[in-house]
């Protein structure tokens, strides 16, 4: 059982790492600010979510698990809103020098 859980953790954490990589590639390759914001939010939401999911399988106790979920929700909220704020400023603001 624990071996199966470990395997699942390895799988989800690796998938999370992959999404972080995808987000970074997007950030590096995409041509303009708005599409870069898009790439960033992918890494935020999915990458961290998968890492948290993988760690949830290893969590000791309900409280520790809830804390992990709380960190993810906080990061999600902050990431989403901030991404929106940045996109808003980038659109209205001065064109990139």
């Amino acid at each position, binding site marked *: 059982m624990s071996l199966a859980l*470990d395997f699942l953790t390895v799988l989800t954490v690796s998938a999370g*790492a992959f999404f972080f990589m995808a987000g970074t590639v997007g*950030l590096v390759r995409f041509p303009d600010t708005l599409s870069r914001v898009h790439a960033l939010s992918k890494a935020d939401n999915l990458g961290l979510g998968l890492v948290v999911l993988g760690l949830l399988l290893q969590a000791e106790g309900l409280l*520790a698990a809830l804390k992990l979920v709380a960190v993810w929700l906080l*990061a999600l909220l902050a*990431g989403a809103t901030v991404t929106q*704020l*940045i996109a808003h400023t980038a659109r209205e*603001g001065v064109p*990139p020098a």
Partner: protein
Amino acid sequence: MADFLLGAAGFLLATVAVGLARILRGPGDAERIMAAQLLGTGGIAALLLLAKAMSVPAAVDVAMILALLAAFVSVAFVKGAGRSQGDRA
């Protein structure tokens, strides 16, 4: 397991560092704040992995603080950007 989690944390940081190297150069301030945001998320993920790998549960608290304050820094940026435009006009 601990070795795998530590390795994953290292991989995440390395990935994020590549993005950081590209994006810190700009061209705009929005890109730069995005770089900090990306590093923030990567740092949170790395801290959560470290907490498990090193058995330091308090690292989860550190991650929570980072999640909370990442928003704060970006908000300060958005307000600052708005203000400096106002000064220019």
